[in-house]
Structure formats: structure tokens, C-alpha cells
């Protein structure tokens, strides 16, 4: 239990650090006022109010002067307050579930995320499932006859998969399976679960194959190490079959590296999903973030950062818990 409490405290600390960095960076590097009100943000309101100069729109814009608009925006977004104060307010809103509204189209950020996130999550789940489902039997087959023909061919294949950048992999798959053979749809179809899954096959493969290659490398090595253990000899002396020994004795204690990298690789998947969502026209969070960054739509970017960081931290927290299921000896130290 103390183990869990420690991990939870670390989880919260990481989230605070990530959001503070993102919030600070966006506010310092960009100009939030400009993004809200546009070029009138540069008006020198003190001078206008003192009657020294005219404002840009010549006093009236639907009855309100530029300065009024600027002031209102300042108040609304608390731009008159210091950065840490603004962060605290923003964090309070987030904790209450208020992610703010988009600067550009006044859409609530929550609604945008609620609409985009499930598609990205589905993509990542499909990719990870493919990675794991492909890599485990592959690694087992390679480790069973290590350094023989199949294992050597696997090494070359897996390095090949890792060497191809995901945009190239995506385009290759898209060309063959969509353009030439027309097996899969060219854009995301959201009609029912089957259609959604079908649309995810190619994007999932694009992200999942390099994952499978990474997992295969790690698991193969760990399996070969575990196969040297005395308890494997003991199981052989008990007359257990090779298959039984592989799956009942060797696989589980060999999963540590795979599980660790499984957690870490989710971060890479978020990056990969930006590319893949564009190639396969999936209206997911990755695309939304890219667009929001280009348009300096802070609330969307920040909201996404919060969601993505939370997801990442929670997955890695889960991985720590999974360790103790793999190896009962870990539980003792908790």
C-alpha cells in the first residue's frame, strides 16, 4: 500500500510539472491577448483613453471601442494577473472539469476533446494490441531456436521495421491496401464499431509494426536469458514439453522489459498518431493538437496536454502495478 501511495504522489507531481511547463511556455512564447482579440491587442489603451490618439477602428465597433474589447478580454482571461496566479486559476478550472473554450471558434475545449480523443485512443489501443499480439509468438519462435535461420531472419526483419519512419510505412500501406487493392477505406468511417475497427487496421499497423519489432527484440533476449535458468532444466527433467515450458514457465518471468517499454512507448505513439491521423484522415486528437498549435489556440493545446500527460502517467503507473503481478517477489518490497 505504501508502494501505491508513493507512486500516486509521484504521479501528481509529474502532472503538476508538465502542466506548469506547458502553461508557462505557451504564455511566454506566445501572446495570448493577440490570439484572443487579434491585431487590436497592440493598441496603446492608456493613450487612447487620454485622448492622445485614436484607436485603430476609429472609436466604434458595434458600440464598443477597441480598448473596451481589449480590457474585457484581459479580464476574462485574467491576463492582468501574474503568470503563476493565472496558472493556479487555470489549474483550478481544470480540476473542476472546466477546460475553457477555444480562442478561435468559441467551442468548449471539453467538447472538442470528447469528440477527438476516443478516435486517438482507439488508434493507440489497436496499435498496442497489434504490437503485443504480433511480438509475443514471434519472440517465442525466435528464442526457441535462437541464432538459427528463423531467428536471424527475424532480426533483419525487425530492424527493417524499426528503420522505416512511420510516415513512410503509412504511405506504403495506404498505397497498396487503399489505392491499389481497395481493401480498406481511405478515411475514417464512424458508422459502427466494425467500420471503426476496419478503418483502424492500417493506421494501427503503421504504428503497431515498429512496436512489434521493438517488443520482439526485447522479449526474445529476455526469453533466451530465462531459458538458461535452472528451473527450466528442472521442468525438462520433469518431462514438461518445450511448448509447455515456454508458455507456462519462461514467458511470464521474461516480460519485464516488454512491459516497461510498453508503458514508455505510449509517449512515442502520441507523436506517431499526429502523422498517422493525417495520412489516414482520422479526425483525432493528434490532428486537433497540430492545428491548435499552428493557430495558437492555447486552451485546446493545454487541454490536450493535460489529457495526454495524464494518460501517459496513468499507463506507467499501471505498468508498475503490473510488475507485481508478473513477479510475486516485487510485492514484498511494497
Amino acid at each position, binding site marked *: 500500500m505504501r508502494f501505491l501511495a508513493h507512486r500516486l504522489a509521484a504521479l501528481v507531481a509529474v502532472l503538476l510539472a508538465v502542466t506548469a511547463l506547458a502553461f508557462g511556455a505557451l504564455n511566454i512564447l506566445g501572446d495570448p491577448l493577440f490570439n484572443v482579440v487579434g491585431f487590436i491587442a497592440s493598441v496603446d489603451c492608456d493613450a487612447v483613453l487620454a485622448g492622445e490618439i485614436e484607436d485603430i477602428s476609429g472609436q466604434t465597433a458595434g458600440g464598443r471601442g477597441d480598448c473596451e474589447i481589449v480590457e474585457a478580454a484581459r479580464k476574462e482571461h485574467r491576463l492582468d494577473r501574474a503568470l503563476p496566479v493565472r496558472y493556479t486559476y487555470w489549474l483550478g478550472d481544470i480540476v473542476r472539469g472546466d477546460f475553457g473554450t477555444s480562442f478561435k471558434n468559441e467551442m468548449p475545449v471539453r467538447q472538442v476533446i470528447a469528440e477527438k480523443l476516443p478516435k486517438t485512443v482507439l488508434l493507440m489501443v489497436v496499435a498496442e494490441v497489434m504490437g503485443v499480439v504480433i511480438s509475443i509468438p514471434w519472440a517465442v519462435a525466435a528464442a526457441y531456436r535462437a541464432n538459427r535461420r528463423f531467428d536471424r531472419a527475424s532480426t533483419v526483419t525487425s530492424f527493417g521495421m524499426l528503420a522505416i519512419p512511420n510516415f513512410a510505412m503509412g504511405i506504403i500501406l495506404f498505397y497498396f491496401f487503399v489505392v491499389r487493392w481497395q481493401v480498406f477505406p481511405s478515411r475514417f468511417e464512424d458508422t459502427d464499431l466494425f467500420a471503426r475497427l476496419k478503418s483502424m487496421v492500417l493506421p494501427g499497423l503503421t504504428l503497431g509494426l515498429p512496436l512489434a519489432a521493438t517488443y520482439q527484440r526485447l522479449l526474445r533476449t529476455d526469453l533466451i536469458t530465462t531459458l538458461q535458468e535452472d528451473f527450466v532444466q528442472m521442468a525438462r*527433467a*520433469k518431462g514438461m514439453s518445450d511448448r509447455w515450458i515456454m508458455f*507456462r514457465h519462461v514467458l511470464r518471468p521474461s516480460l519485464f522489459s516488454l512491459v516497461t517499454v510498453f508503458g514508455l512507448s505510449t509517449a512515442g505513439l502520441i507523436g506517431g498518431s499526429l502523422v498517422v491521423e493525417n495520412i489516414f484522415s482520422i479526425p483525432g486528437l493528434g490532428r486537433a493538437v497540430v492545428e491548435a498549435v499552428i493557430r495558437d489556440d492555447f486552451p485546446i493545446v493545454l487541454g490536450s496536454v493535460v489529457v495526454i500527460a495524464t494518460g501517459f502517467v496513468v499507463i506507467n503507473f499501471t505498468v508498475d502495478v503490473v510488475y507485481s503481478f508478473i513477479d510475486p517477489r516485487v510485492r514484498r518490497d511494497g
Partner: protein
Amino acid sequence: MAVTDGSPLLSVSDLRVGFATERGLVRAVDGVSFDLAAGRTLGIVGESGSGKSVTAKTIMNLLPSYARVEGSVTFDGRDVRALASSGARHFWGVEMTMVFQDPMTSLNPVKKVGEQIAESLRVHLKRSRKEARDEAGDLLEQVGIPEPRKRLTQYPHELSGGLRQRVVIAMALACSPRLLIADEPTTALDVTVQKHILDLLDGLREERGMAMILITHDLGVVRGRADDIMVMYAGRTMEQADTDTLFSEMRHPYTEALLETIPRIDMPSHSRLVPIPGRPPDVIEVSTGCPFAPRCRSCTDVCLTERPTLDEQGHGHVCACHGPVGTDVGAMARSANEASGVTPAGLDMAAFGSAGVEAGDGS
């Protein structure tokens, strides 16, 4: 399935095992033969690298695929090596099993003790989950583990070394094998636990009428437990006899040297233990002479050039030596070496005395 009288349960004949390495062929076992009758115990004794474990692993079909095996192994009339190549199931683990040296590593750390015992029963004897579990509990009780039912759900790391070795023995006995090979079963255990485990093995063997091969580097362990003893060195049999004969009419200088390395209760305290100088030979360098010659205090010129054959000494007692202990030839060779202070192999005779460890010395 009773073994007909006269024919042994296990028969190993001219067994040779080699491993091809980058440096050449390593002859780990070089022409070993022995018979083991049902219900009897054979002790195989030798230093590390003498080929005793490889012999056991050959019988158990545990050698890596690159090992080159020649000779024959017959179990109850069946050709064991043919069984291995045909992928026979329900033979190893059922007819014969093995217990390894280190109970800390021979149990799977991520599986409960009960599951590990039950799996043999489920795979080989097709027991149901519940039956297997009940039997596993009974087995733990038989090997003298307190609260056996509770232990079933524990993991190996929750047990002490002695208990773990008992679990390993229970695992090995699950399918009531007719032959149990115990490879240094107590070497990794506390001295206080060693005797318990050896007595347990002996008791179980007698109870079940099982044959046993007890592999050890310690002649003291097999004395009083084994019916027959085979002393191995550099992959070869040096001396082989029934236990009483071996201790009363010890022939091979190596056997004698082995015995002098272990402390005995009947020796006065502070007696010197005599080490065997040098180290076991690299089995790649197959010399033409006796492999023990470089470390032998009765070494003669013949020993360096001619390999001794395994000669009958009477009553099935065989020994491979040019100048056996207790013969005039041997005595003369030894006294000649003592007189000159150095053996024909260049070994300083002082190595047998001065480097000795003072037994019971506080340092």
C-alpha cells in the same frame, strides 16, 4: 513392470559425450560404463569438471543439442537415446527424474509451489486440478514439510533453502519415478540441513523401492548411503566398487586423495586436511597418459605416457591406475617420489603437506 532378475534397471555402456567448442572438442565424458539395479543407490564422486553432471544430464536428455553423444543408455530394456530422438513423452519425469544442486534457482520464482508440483501430475498422469492439488499436498507431507496445505499457495521465495529442496524433491517424486538422479542435492544448503535432506532422500528411496544416483564431490556423503561408488576424474572412471570394498580396499590414489580432503569425526581435531594440489585438467588437452598423473603423488614415468586401463581388482572392483594404492608398485612409486621430493610430472611433493589447512583452526 517388475525388472527381471539379473538385468539392471539402468545400464550405461561406454558413454562418451563431447562438446564442440571454438578451442576444439571438449571430452566431458570419456568411456563411462555402469549398471544400476532397481532399488539400489550408485554414488558418483568427483571434483567439478569430472563429468559426473554431464553423465547425469545425458541420461536425463538435458544436454544442449550441440552435444555429441556416443555409447548406449538402457533403462528397463529401452534405449534411452532412441527415446530422446523420437521425442517420447511421459518418460522423463515419470520413469526417471532429477534433483538439482541449487534449490534457490531450480524452482520457478513466479509460480506457486503447489502448481509446480501439480503440473507433472496433470501433464503425465492426467489428474484433475483438484486431484493434483491434493496429491501435491500429500507429497509435501511425505517430504516432511510442516503445514503442507498452506505451502501449496506460497511462492518459492517465501521458503527457506532446506524447504525449497524438499519441494524440489516432492516435485521430482510426483509421478513415482523408478530412478531418481540427485546432482549434488545438498551442496548449496546449510550444513545443518544437509544431513536431513540426505536422510530424507534415502528414506524415500527405500520406501518406494526407487533406484538412485547420488552425485557428489564428497566421499563422506555417499559413504553409508550408496551401495556402489564410481569415482570420476576428467570424464573417466578412475575406480568403481561396492561401497564397503572401496573404503576398505581403496586402490586409486585419486580416491585416496579425495578422502583425505574431507574432515572426519574420528580424526583428532586440528588434524591436517590434505588438499589435492593443482586443478582438474582442461579436458580439451587430452594427454596420452593418466589424466590424474600431474597431481598424483604416486606418479611414475609410465603414468605420463600410457593411459591406464580399467582393470579388475576382484569382486567387480575396477581401477584405472599403473601403481594402485596398497600394491607394491604403488608403494614403491610413492616412496621414490618422496625421496626425490618431486614427481616425474614435476609436482613438488611438499604441496601435499605444507599447503594443508589446519582443520578446526580458528583463523
